[in-house]
């Protein structure tokens, strides 16, 4: 018997009169048979319709034109007429289709109804299919089986497993090697040998800094490449400021950083670059990851709020923004905007694809619509400081600082008003005295408000403004002059005492009690459901964060959420970031879907290692990313050769067991920056407003606003690292775009790596590479002199960190020779330089140049 089929009140009867139980049960059955018992709508009928029917039959999606979420839909029915027929219940399509097994449709993977459920429906239809007034069934009411779902690996608490013993003799000192080694041994595989010092050197540089090492650095390390000097080098690289410039980019991909808003005007986000600099600085300072997260989520709500923590909250403001929304559409747009913020936040920090629960419960993960809208309520109090279509920044500082500036401005406003009154009184008196030497029409023009002057008056005013002011100054009585000067000095003093605050780009809250949030049925703002207090997804916690409004007049929702995110008990945060760091070192994460730790996502290849690392990261490394990098980079797993032996290649072609270091193409930032480093043109300037890289005119021609859209920065600004390049959402720098730059509007967990002909065109024929090839050639000529062999050696060492092989060298020498001879129109010197430029162009295009091995 279906446990749900139990007439209401049975339990009480059972309690009071146990002896009656059997009799009552048989009565229940006979009543069901006679279709006389009326099932309770909320307790019995609604759950069936909600969990089995309305997913395809609701307002937003009425398959067969049938909407079973409201009584009108039931009565009107769909393509096959009314769904219920009270006179002949057995002929009701609702019953017939279910009884025949046609509904719910098994070909769409739907479970059939149980006999008990069908019986309830029958009884309900027979009794007239009563429906409470105005009751609309919602997809958000579908059951989510949270308890069972908690057993899923990603929601399990992180527990540190013991480090296994491995029989690989050279492994074990580093726990990473023990975990990886254990799996290799179990698969009867032997990992590759260590990479050569030269390979390790280049690998570590490209990985941590995104640049090849200089010759000096090469010489230094290769002179004594012991494990100790390697570790020392890793430490030095982690202290190198280039580390932040390289690794910040990965974070910017996740938070869909761009410098403009997109859409028609695609206006700049004022001062948004300070957020980019904040990320670089935070990484370079090894800010603990938990603090890094809290600052970005709720830096404005922190007790120790500062300019820096407020800049950090720019995190919420990075999405695209449509500044032209018709008032009728704006509630929906607001919902879309919140969705964008919510998806970015939950995917980046928690690897939860919460966006799937916007219109119905998550299809795969135990995340309900209620979870979605509760979490949305945490971000919904945030406001944008725009004025109409104009985007704005705001002063960033402690509340005391912000208040002090506000007070100061109030005082200054009052002083200015007094001063202006004195001046205007003086002007009035002077005018009335009739002593001015200026003609009447001039005075009339000058005394007309600038906005109200006619064209002639404008001219007169311009011409005589200075004379008028001189007259007024001369006429100013001493007492007033003194007063005005006093007021101006005070204003100056106030400005000195309380200087302006730095401005930053962020969203803000301004009330401890923001308006209520609502669940939106079918994700439509026009269809609000129940009110939703702020909360975090139920499956992820057993205790909801305690939300209290803050002293600075905000809701405190984000701060409570932030503390919950970085609570060591949160099962996801540490696993997610550890996996991301691993991914950028090895190309693939231990979980291959780094922003989706859900059921559809990948399972960890090394679950024990992931948990060990996550626990170690929180408790031993105290959330220090640099310590994590160091641990990883000093493992043999990281230092292994990228060349697979035959067995490894055959038995683990995808390198899931990490027997070798994966060979992979650099992202476009590292490619472009490496070219600049080799050519000697890299401009090391850090921070500040973004740089506009050159864009071919044919691409600008295809933009709506053409000339107005782009003002290329001058040299040498355009030779700065790529992370400082301006990202305009409607006009991307073609070289970056074609070489797989991330999507600028969605959170990117991992760049695509494609090999398409337009990339070859860009890198081979494009202006940038050809210009840099010439710089590179000139550098080599300057440093290596006339000897062709020395030139080739130097070019290889600068670009590839090695000397050419004899066959390579022979090919290159022959090319230089042939090319210089072929260019007969040039002088021999020019011809040799031209040939060398071609060699440099070829080197920048080598696979080896764009692959870290």
């Amino acid at each position, binding site marked *: 018997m279906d446990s749900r089929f139990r007439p209401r009140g049975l339990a009480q009867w059972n309690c009071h009169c146990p002896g009656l139980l059997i009799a009552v049960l048989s009565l229940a059955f006979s009543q069901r048979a006679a279709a006389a018992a009326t099932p309770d709508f909320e307790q019995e009928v609604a759950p069936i319709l909600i969990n089995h029917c309305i997913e395809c039959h609701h307002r937003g*999606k*009425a*398959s067969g034109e049938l909407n079973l979420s409201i009584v009108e839909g039931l009565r009107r029915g769909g393509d096959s007429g009314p769904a219920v027929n009270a006179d002949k219940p057995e002929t009701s399509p609702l019953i017939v289709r279910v009884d025949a097994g046609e509904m719910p449709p098994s070909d769409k993977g739907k479970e059939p109804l149980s006999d008990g459920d069908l019986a309830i429906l029958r009884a309900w239809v027979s009794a007239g299919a009563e429906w409470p007034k105005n009751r609309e069934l919602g997809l958000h009411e579908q059951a989510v089986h949270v308890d069972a779902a908690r057993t899923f690996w990603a929601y399990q608490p992180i527990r540190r497993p013991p480090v296994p013993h491995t029989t690989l003799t050279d492994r074990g000192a580093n726990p990473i090697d023990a975990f990886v080694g254990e799996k290799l041994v179990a698969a009867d595989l032997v990992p590759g040998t260590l990479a050569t010092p030269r390979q390790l050197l280049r690998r570590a540089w490209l990985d941590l800094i995104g640049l090849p090492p200089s010759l000096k650095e090469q010489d230094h390390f290769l002179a004594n490449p012991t494990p100790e000097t390697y570790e020392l080098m890793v430490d030095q690289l982690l202290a190198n400021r280039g580390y932040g410039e390289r690794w910040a980019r990965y974070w910017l991909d996740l938070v869909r950083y761009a410098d403009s808003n997109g*859409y*028609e005007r695609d206006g700049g986000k004022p001062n948004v670059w300070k957020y980019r600099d904040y990320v670089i600085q935070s990484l370079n300072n090894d800010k603990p990851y938990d603090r890094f997260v809290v600052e970005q989520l709720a830096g404005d709500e922190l007790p120790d709020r500062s300019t820096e923590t407020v800049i950090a909250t720019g995190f919420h403001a990075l999405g695209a923004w*449509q500044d*032209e929304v*018709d008032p009728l*559409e704006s509630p929906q747009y607001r919902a*879309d905007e919140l969705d*964008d913020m919510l998806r970015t936040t939950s*995917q980046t920090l928690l690897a939860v*694809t919460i966006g*799937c629960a916007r219109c119905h419960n998550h299809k795969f*993960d135990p995340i309900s619509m209620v979870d979605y809208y509760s979490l949305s309520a945490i971000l919904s109090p945030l406001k944008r400081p725009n004025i109409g279509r104009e985007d704005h920044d705001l002063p960033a500082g402690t509340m005391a600082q912000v208040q002090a500036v506000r007070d100061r401005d109030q005082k200054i406003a009052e002083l200015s008003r007094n001063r202006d009154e004195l001046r205007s009184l003086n002007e009035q008196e002077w005018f009335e005295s009739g002593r001015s030497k200026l003609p009447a029409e001039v005075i009339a023009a000058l005394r007309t408000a600038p906005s109200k002057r006619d064209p002639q008056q404008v001219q007169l005013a311009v011409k005589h403004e200075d004379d008028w002011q001189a007259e007024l100054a001369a006429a100013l009585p001493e007492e007033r002059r003194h007063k005005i000067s006093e007021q101006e000095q005070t204003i100056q003093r106030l400005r000195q005492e309380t200087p302006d605050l730095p401005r930053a780009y962020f969203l803000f809250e301004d009330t401890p009690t923001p308006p209520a949030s609502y669940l939106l049925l079918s*994700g439509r703002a026009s269809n609000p459901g129940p009110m939703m207090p702020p909360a975090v997804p139920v499956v992820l916690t057993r205790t909801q964060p305690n939300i209290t409004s803050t002293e600075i007049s905000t809701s405190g929702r984000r701060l409570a959420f932030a503390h919950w995110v970085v609570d060591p008990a949160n099962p996801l945060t540490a696993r997610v970031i550890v996996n991301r760091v691993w991914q950028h070192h090895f190309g693939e994460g231990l979980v291959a879907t780094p922003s*989706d730790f859900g059921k559809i*996502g990948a399972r960890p290849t090394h679950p024990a290692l992931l948990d060990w690392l996550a626990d170690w990261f929180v408790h031993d490394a105290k959330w220090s990313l640099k310590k994590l990098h160091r641990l990883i980079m000093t493992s043999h797993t990281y230092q292994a050769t990228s*060349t*697979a032996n035959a067995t490894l290649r055959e038995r683990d*072609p995808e390198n899931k067991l990490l027997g070798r270091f994966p*060979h992979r*193409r650099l992202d476009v930032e590292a490619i472009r920056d490496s070219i600049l480093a080799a050519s000697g043109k890299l401009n090391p300037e850090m921070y500040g407003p973004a740089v506009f890289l050159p864009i*071919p005119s*044919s*691409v600008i*021609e295809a*933009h*709506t606003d*053409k000339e107005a859209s782009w003002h290329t920065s001058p040299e040498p600004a355009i030779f700065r690292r790529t992370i400082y390049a301006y990202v305009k*959402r*409607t006009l991307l720098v073609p070289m970056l*775009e*074609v070489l*797989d730059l991330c*999507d600028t*509007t*969605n959170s990117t967990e991992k760049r695509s790596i494609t*090999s*398409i*002909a337009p990339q*070859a*065109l*860009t890198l*081979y*024929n*494009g202006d940038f590479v050809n210009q840099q090839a010439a710089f590179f050639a000139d550098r080599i000529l300057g440093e290596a002199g006339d000897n062709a062999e020395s030139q080739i050696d130097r070019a290889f060492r600068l670009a590839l960190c090695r000397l050419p092989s004899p066959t390579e060298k022979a*090919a*290159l020498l022959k090319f230089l020779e*042939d090319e210089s001879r*072929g260019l007969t129109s040039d002088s021999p010197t020019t011809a040799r330089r031209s040939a060398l430029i*071609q060699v440099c*162009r*070829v080197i920048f*295009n*080598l*696979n*080896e140049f764009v*692959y870290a*091995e």
Partner: protein
Amino acid sequence: MPHFLPNPMPCGQSRRSFLWDVGGGFAALGLADLLSRDGFFNSSVAADEIAKQPVGGKPLHFPVKAKHCIFLFMNGGPSQIDTFDPKPALGKYDGKTYGGTVKVGSNGRPIGHLMKSPFAFQKYGQSGLEISNLFTNTAQHADDLCVLRAMYTDTAAHSSGCLQMNTGSPLTGRPCLGSWLNYGLGSLNEDLPNFVVMTDPRGGPIGGAPNWGAGYMPATNQGTLFRSKGSPLLDLATPAGVGPRTQRHSLDLLARLNDEHAARHPEQSELAARILSYELAYRMQTSAAEVVDVARETAQTQAMYGLDDPITSEFGSKCLVARRLVEQGVRFIQIYSGGGHIEATWDGHNDCITNHKTHAGETDKPIAALITDLKQRGLWDETLIVWGGEFGRTATSEGVGKPGRDHNWLGFSMWLAGGGVKGGQAIGATDELGFEGVEDRAHVSDLHATILRLMGFDHRRLSYFYNGLDQRLTGVDERHVIEKVLA
């Protein structure tokens, strides 16, 4: 045929092991096709078998009615009332104040009086389809046109409207129709980009590059900007000062060094893919330049497209290039009429009459020529043409006393023609004044569903997994193929 790889077997491997190694990830490069033409396959049978199949792509759900799509995007929003949706009642109400309930105008712009169309409508062809005298040339093909008179979209802003027409969503950052077709259909010619966009010399569409972006799909699915004159593709030309001999020799040197490197890394199939991309690029230098070389066409053909007239030559040459691209197997070609803002596009806020005379004057003859030409060359049945903008325009003037029209997203016209389309009909209707669709309304996503259907796909099943969801061009809401369109 330039011989580029010193060894016909890349990296000294056997053909079989090479194909095995490069695997599916290399599909975007058209490897089989490329190798077959390079003589990599000794057996011509094998080469033929593979050449028939597009490279990449997904299993089709329906028989393909059209292999190619040319989307003529009337940027700015053409007025349905003045083109394909006659409203005689407006004659009666001309100059009167509109008192109806439909929301008129957008974003607080002034609402003037009802304004009849100054353009005369006439019945054309056997079908008697009514078309205004802005399109007298196109109207000669009336029996081929299937006009959708009750289109609607979700937004009245240009950027959101263009994005919605191109990607199905008013929000930025989604893959375009062209991306979906490239992803679904694969490529028939790897020497050319598969999704080509030609913008107007006055500027691009509002909203910029996301109008041809691939969103969350890999960049291989994004549209490629193509110029109909000069060097068609970015960085296609050999750099200044580098002669053809040097270009060839340096590429040979690159290949040689890359081969030596690849031999040291036999497990890396990506390396071979990247090596071949350089040869493909080299080949593209010739093929792409050839495809825009309309001088190869007869004087008669050039005249038909209006290349001899400065008014029509710009759009005409793009239409002609589009036909040449179709001949070369390119799947999706989008041509913009109008670029920049307001009167430089179909956005006739100030003077819709002069505006539409200008833009229709530039495009009518070339569009008619394109239809004629495709028919003459036997490409008509396999090519779908889509005409329209991001929305339509209001029946009221914008402000009193000026002949401008404001945006109208509740009812506007588009037309389809060609492969699989039942021509000579108008589907749906707007209300008496042309404000809002009232009969057989079709959402932009219904149009997308219909285009996908004509090109072989069920819009509910063509999906791309991203962000925990099977994403679709037509989004999460229920959308329908406009069945009446289908021949």
